[in-house]
């Protein structure tokens, strides 16, 4: 049902997904940076952003999607997100506070907490986006390879 070769030829799907993907990504950014005021946060934003890439991968094929978001990029993002989170904690430790006590980042409760939460949520979003796309592309890539070996003339 999600065979990329089949999906390539469906012009309605192609056009609709092309129209949908930019708003999906914009919405992900909104959820990411508006998490302080409304529902949402890094985790949800990461999943939504990843779903944009996954939709692209389903419609246009994993190899095309991999050109947009290559394997090295998702792997780096995967690690960098967690490191942003962890090193925010280390920074607060170095600046004389407890681990992940954001107030010491600027010395002011309001701005310090805001900066800390922003950094931490950004880290979560980065890791979740990378994790979801990695898992999907690994599974989907697997299938394309299997098809290739079963039916080499394709």
């Amino acid at each position, binding site marked *: *049902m*999600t*065979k990329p070769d089949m999906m390539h030829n469906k012009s309605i799907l192609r056009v609709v997904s092309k129209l949908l993907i930019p708003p999906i990504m914009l919405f992900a950014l909104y*959820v990411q940076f508006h*998490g*302080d*005021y409304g*529902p*949402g*946060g890094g*985790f*949800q934003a990461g*999943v*939504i952003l*990843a*779903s944009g890439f*996954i939709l692209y991968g*389903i419609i246009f094929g994993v*190899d095309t999607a*991999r050109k947009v978001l*290559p*394997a*090295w990029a998702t*792997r780096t993002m*995967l690690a960098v997100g*967690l490191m942003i*989170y*962890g090193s925010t*904690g280390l920074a607060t430790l170095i600046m004389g506070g407890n681990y*992940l006590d954001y107030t010491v980042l600027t010395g002011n*409760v*309001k701005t310090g*907490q*805001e900066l*800390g*939460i922003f950094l*931490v*949520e950004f*880290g*979560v979003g980065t*890791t*979740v986006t*990378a*994790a*979801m796309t*990695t*898992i*999907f592309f*690994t*599974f*989907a*890539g*697997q*299938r394309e*390879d*299997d098809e*290739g*070996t079963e039916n*080499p*003339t394709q």
Partner: protein
Amino acid sequence: MAASALVMVRLRNLFAVAMLSGAFSLIAAVLYVVMDAVDVAFTEAAVGAGIATVLMLSTLGLTKQEEKIRAGSPLLALLIVFVTGGGLLYGTLDMPHYGDATAPINNHVAPRYIEKSGAEVGPPNIVTSILASYRGYDTLGETAVVFTAAIGVLAIIGRSRRKKMGAPENRPEHDREHDREHDHEHDRGTA
């Protein structure tokens, strides 16, 4: 919700089961909205109904669409399900009613979060201040779990894929070129 769960048990077509489990998650998300837990509903809708369904479908692409009929009696499995479900239901009898003001959960740390999180942390969304600030360690742990899951998938499936790429003998020319592209990707990935 119960109807979709029962249909899922009866169906043998796994594609329909995957779609129904997505619908199940969506109804669960609506339930969370009704209970005023919008953040949880958001996550349920995005992960349960969205990504999980897509992952199920991509896994289905690797296997067959129909569930195999197992030999042997399902009575033991049914018994375990009933005993576990009965135990869980029995456990809920002791729980306080939903929205009970005297329930322990509403008298422990929740009042402090509601009263002081504005001054102590700042964001108007208390859920965000709990997740990212009060419970920062937990969220760090959760992020590590997501990271580990992706690493696990890469370690298990990502490697077998590369091995397959290393043996392109009996395949036509354009397929082998395809492989070379992939190998480049892997080189960059490991560099």
